[in-house]
């Protein structure tokens, strides 16, 4: 199934080359969970990162569905 992955701020450079903007589309197997997306981009699921699923705080073992948006950015403040 297809989902979107948004990597913001300094993580934007981890997106596949040629991606325009902060979002890339990804084909993933059914039953894929949020944690596996984070790992796919060589990031850690801990307090150094913020991981959102469709704009809400995500749990690592949440199962993904078609057209979901996973967003990851480093946990540094502020503005």
């Amino acid at each position, binding site marked *: 199934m297809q989902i979107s992955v*948004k990597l*913001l*701020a*300094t*993580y*934007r450079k981890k997106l596949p080359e040629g991606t325009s*903007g*902060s979002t890339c589309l990804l084909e993933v197997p059914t039953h894929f969970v949020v944690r596996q997306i984070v790992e796919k981009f060589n990031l850690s699921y801990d*307090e*150094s*990162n*913020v991981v*959102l699923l*469709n*704009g*809400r*705080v995500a749990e690592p073992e949440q199962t993904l569905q078609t057209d979901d948006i996973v*967003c990851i*950015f*480093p*946990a*540094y*403040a*502020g*503005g």
Partner: protein
Amino acid sequence: MNGWQGKILRINLTDQSVKQEDVDPGFAKDFLGGRGWAIKYLYEEMDPTVDPLSPDNMLIFATGPLTGTPAPTGNRYMVVTKSPLTGSLSNSNSGGEFPTWMKRTGFDLFIFTGKAPQPIYLWVNENQVEIRSAVHLWGKNVPQTTDLLVAETNPDAKVACIGPAGENLVLMAAIINDKHRAAARSGVGAVMGSKNLKAVVVYGTKQPAMYDEKGMKKLSVEISKEVGEGIKAGSSLREFGTAYVPQVTNELGILPTHNFQSGQFEGVDSIDGVALKEKYLIRPKPCYRCPIACGRLTKVADGSPYDGEGEGPEYETLSALGSACGIDNLGAITKANYICNELGMDTITAGMTVAATMEMSERGLIPDSDIGKPLRFGDADMLIELLEKMAYRQGFGNTLAEGSFRLAAKYEHPEIAVTARKLEFPGYDPRGAQGMGLLYATASVGASHMAGDVAYAEVFGVPENIDPLATEGKPALVKRFGNAFVSIDSTGMCVFLSVRYIFDPDLNLWPTRLTELMNLTTGAEYTPESLIRAADRIFNLERMFLIGAGFTGKDDTLPPRMLLEPLSSGPAKGYVVHLDKMLPEFYALQGWDENGVPTKEKLEELNLSEIVYS
């Protein structure tokens, strides 16, 4: 004394007399410095019902004990006064270089009272104090004023001044130091203008003494090193400045859009940190002795009407002059930012006042003839034109110069103004960040993220990621962040460094390392407990000032849009701010009664009884 210089300067502008005064060491410790010392002087010496634009208002420039020390980001000062915009307290904060040089004159605080008969400026050159005519500077903008003052005082002098906006008593006038840094909110520039005080110029070489200089330098180097490692690990502030934030708040559905009618902006990709870096960034710019360097040195040179150069824009500016106004032209937003710096205005209040005008114009609530023509969201050229009119109180600018609350009241639609205590909301829609809603409703200055930015946790995951949509635990969180920010504002540090690097990395926000920095510098033997108690003391004295000024628990509230109109789209769809679920618990945690008044027991616990009841 160590850390503190132990001296304040009192300037009576009416009779142009200047007095140096020693600081009592006991009070010094109990009120930390900076914001804490300022409220003590203000509370004890000023009637809280004064007209903020009258000579009776006190204007205080306050450095902290860590200002001008090797502490990384030990470079901040506060401007504390009664606000002409809100009728409440002002606690405006700024960095750059001015605060360090002010501290090096040998004075911790400058306290201004009265009003000069003609425009003047204060020149503090080491410990020599002069009041000089500023008649030749009146009418000049911030960069012109700064350059002229440096030329007629000392090439290494630092300047804090007002532009035309402050001179014209515009209620969102700011005090701009080092040309591009702002003590912006609450109309502090108008207070300066009402006193005919055009500028404060400082030069000094008296470094603050340190109790344990070696230990202080060692810890400072250790912290700076950690910041460097953080930057390598992905911290975005140096690479993008705070301009990386629109994508984050947009993703959460809380980026102020069209005067807070929605929380997601179609044009966000055009106004983010990547766009700023690619198009206009020259290089990052740090405040003095800051290892982060979030400042942006920028230049717009498209050959467009938006050409210019300066510093910024920051996140709040991208929100208030950008998405809140429906504007996605980054060049125009950057130019509008330069104009606010040059004329001396708060970008948040200025932008949000125009945003309110745009909504009212679109709804037919302001006659086109009043504005000059119809005003719609997205009209960047009108935004720029109106900003200039506001600074000079020309035409419709005279109405806008009073801020969005008075604008909306004038046209009999008070529900359009997105303010708390008449202060316009910053860039986080609280319907999608409940803790921010509680903060906006209860902070001493009104709706300010700088009063205790729980968005660090609700939005940025610092020190831990928490659910922005939950109300549970938010009263305690807002209290802890509030006290943390009081301690940062009072010691002279910057919040960007502090929350991550000098508080414990959990939601208790325990000031372990800040206590260490304070003790190495001052030798005052704080514990984290006594430091937080001092912050609590300061915050409650501010609360007593508000009560004296006429505020009650009824003013701890938010506009109907926040309490009654749910966000209609995005991840926070369907949410309002559930203030009623949070406020009673917040009052209880603070030791306030059901009307939001600190109890006798609370004041006694904080040793405030004598100050408050005498």
